[in-house]
């Protein structure tokens, strides 16, 4: 019962934010200086086409009416139509969302399998050279632009050694893993230092907690304390850290998809900006924000499964 109540409050908190997200995305198209239809169609269109487009987008109606029809259509899963690509926005997004999700999941997985051992190592060797080297390498890693890293990896492993394909998505799960290795690795290079930073902190916090003190006074070996107590308790913050950084992960995906020509949401966004395809940009803004909110919700639920005290605290 408590769980259902918790989920209900959590969903309730999302409603005003979702409304504001819709408002901001709507304003994106409404605030375009000049006539968005003229900007989109350029000089190519005849007057009848332009008038038809005005009719279709309801630009002759007042702004409030347009906003509420945007909301009510959005609730029915209709995000409008792209004039330039001649397809509904939801279809364009639907075709590409799995590629982006795959890329995100893969990057998070790669980042985790590197970051967890690294932060563990940093904690064991706390304030010794290994710890400092890990911290300094992390600083360099955080300063590397992902598009640059992507290009260099492409040059080295794609073109010089011919180990990985440098563009596209492939067919089937195994090919996806192969095609998306370089792009995912590029994103994870940015994510790993962020994860290590916060995991190292949280593990050090756990090391100073009372129950570790108790375990120590019982005479448990430090290896056992680290593995059984510190490591297990640091897995919970990992969920939080990943979900908090989902926005950065998505930002990274936008750039990396463009570099590696992956047909995902990010490259759709960059292309649509080039075309001034406002309905698509507007729809993508909503979808990106919903992805972030969904991941945060899932992380909270997962957190709740791992640690039931969360419900009581609310």
């Amino acid at each position: 019962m408590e769980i259902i109540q918790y989920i209900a409050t959590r969903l309730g908190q999302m409603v005003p934010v979702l409304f504001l997200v819709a408002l901001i995305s709507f304003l994106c198209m409404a605030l375009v200086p000049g006539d968005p239809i003229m900007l989109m169609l350029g000089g190519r269109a005849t007057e009848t086409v332009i008038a038809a487009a005005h009719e279709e987008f309801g630009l002759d109606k007042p702004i409030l009416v347009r906003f509420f029809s945007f909301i009510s259509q959005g609730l029915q899963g209709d995000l409008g139509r792209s004039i330039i690509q001649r397809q509904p926005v939801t279809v364009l997004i639907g075709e590409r969302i799995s590629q982006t999700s795959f890329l995100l999941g893969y990057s998070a997985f790669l980042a985790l399998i590197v970051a967890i051992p690294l932060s563990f190592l940093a904690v064991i060797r706390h304030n010794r050279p290994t710890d400092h080297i890990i911290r300094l390498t992390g600083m360099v890693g955080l300063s590397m632009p992902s598009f640059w890293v992507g290009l260099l990896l492409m040059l080295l492993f794609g073109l010089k050694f011919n180990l990985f394909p440098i563009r596209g998505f492939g067919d089937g799960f195994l090919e996806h893993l192969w095609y998306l290795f370089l792009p995912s690795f590029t994103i994870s290079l940015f994510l790993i230092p962020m994860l290590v930073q916060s995991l190292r902190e949280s593990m050090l916090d756990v090391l100073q907690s009372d129950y570790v003190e108790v375990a120590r006074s019982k005479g448990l070996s430090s290896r056992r304390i680290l593995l059984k107590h510190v490591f297990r308790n640091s897995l919970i913050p990992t969920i939080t850290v990943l979900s908090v950084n989902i926005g950065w992960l998505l930002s990274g995906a936008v750039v990396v998809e463009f570099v590696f020509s992956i047909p995902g949401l990010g490259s759709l966004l960059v292309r649509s900006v080039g075309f001034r395809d406002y309905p698509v940009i507007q729809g993508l803004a909503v979808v990106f924000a919903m992805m972030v909110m969904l991941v945060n919700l899932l992380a909270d639920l997962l957190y709740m499964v791992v640690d039931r005290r969360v419900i009581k605290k609310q």
Partner: protein
Amino acid sequence: MNSADILLNQRTLLIREVRSWSNTLKIGTAILLVITIAGILAPLITSSDPYYQDYGSILLAPSWEHIFGTDHLGRDIYSRVIHGIRIDLTVAFVITYVPMIYGVAIGAIAGYYGGWVDSILMRLLDTAIAFPFLVLIIVIIAILGPGVQNIYLAVCLVAWTMYARLARAEMLIEREKDYMLAAKSMGFPVSRIIFRHALPNIMSPVIVFSMADFVLNILLLSGLSFLGLGIQAPEPEWGAMIAAGRDYIFDSWWICTIPGLAIVVTGTSLSLIGDGLTQRLGGR
């Protein structure tokens, strides 16, 4: 005490201060100083014009004449990277510290008053954080069009939320402390309590965060320019230079690599300063 004594005194104070710094802070500051001075003296320390296209020397590998080589239009990359400091460092500085000023003020005021002011701000912050930062910036740029003024505008519209969140959280802690009660009971005006008493105590984490933000803003600016949404060719901006070198990467690796290294070195120096400041200011 005459003025010479005061000057001497200030110098010993400065030396003492620098001596107390950690190694990361010293090294980071030194690198950043060198980069900044190189940017200021750019025309003096480079021999060729960053815009000059020499079609007789296209795609030359690094040599004594062109230590970082030349690009596809025969422009000297060393000269372009050094002139790029002026653009990247200045723009990133502005989009970091301008939003910081009003972000901190808004967050501090909301945190101090609480109530409905705070509730409205929190909903706004939740919404801002729901969008991936880069996506929101790209959407705003899509409306306004590419270019440096619009980057200033887009980032100033969005980035203050991070500082407001931070300042609000710190203010909630600070508000309950004894010195704040004392200031309140003295009958000081609220503006004085917030800005003269509380603010100095909430600035340490803000300053530390701003160094990380500075790094991210360099990446943001170069990323937008790389996507063609930021600073446009032929300006010597690092991200735009990498984008231009993309088509020649197989045979002429230096066009992409060198500007990227400039970003990494600048970003690392800022991260080192941030790391040192954490210890110096006693932040977390």
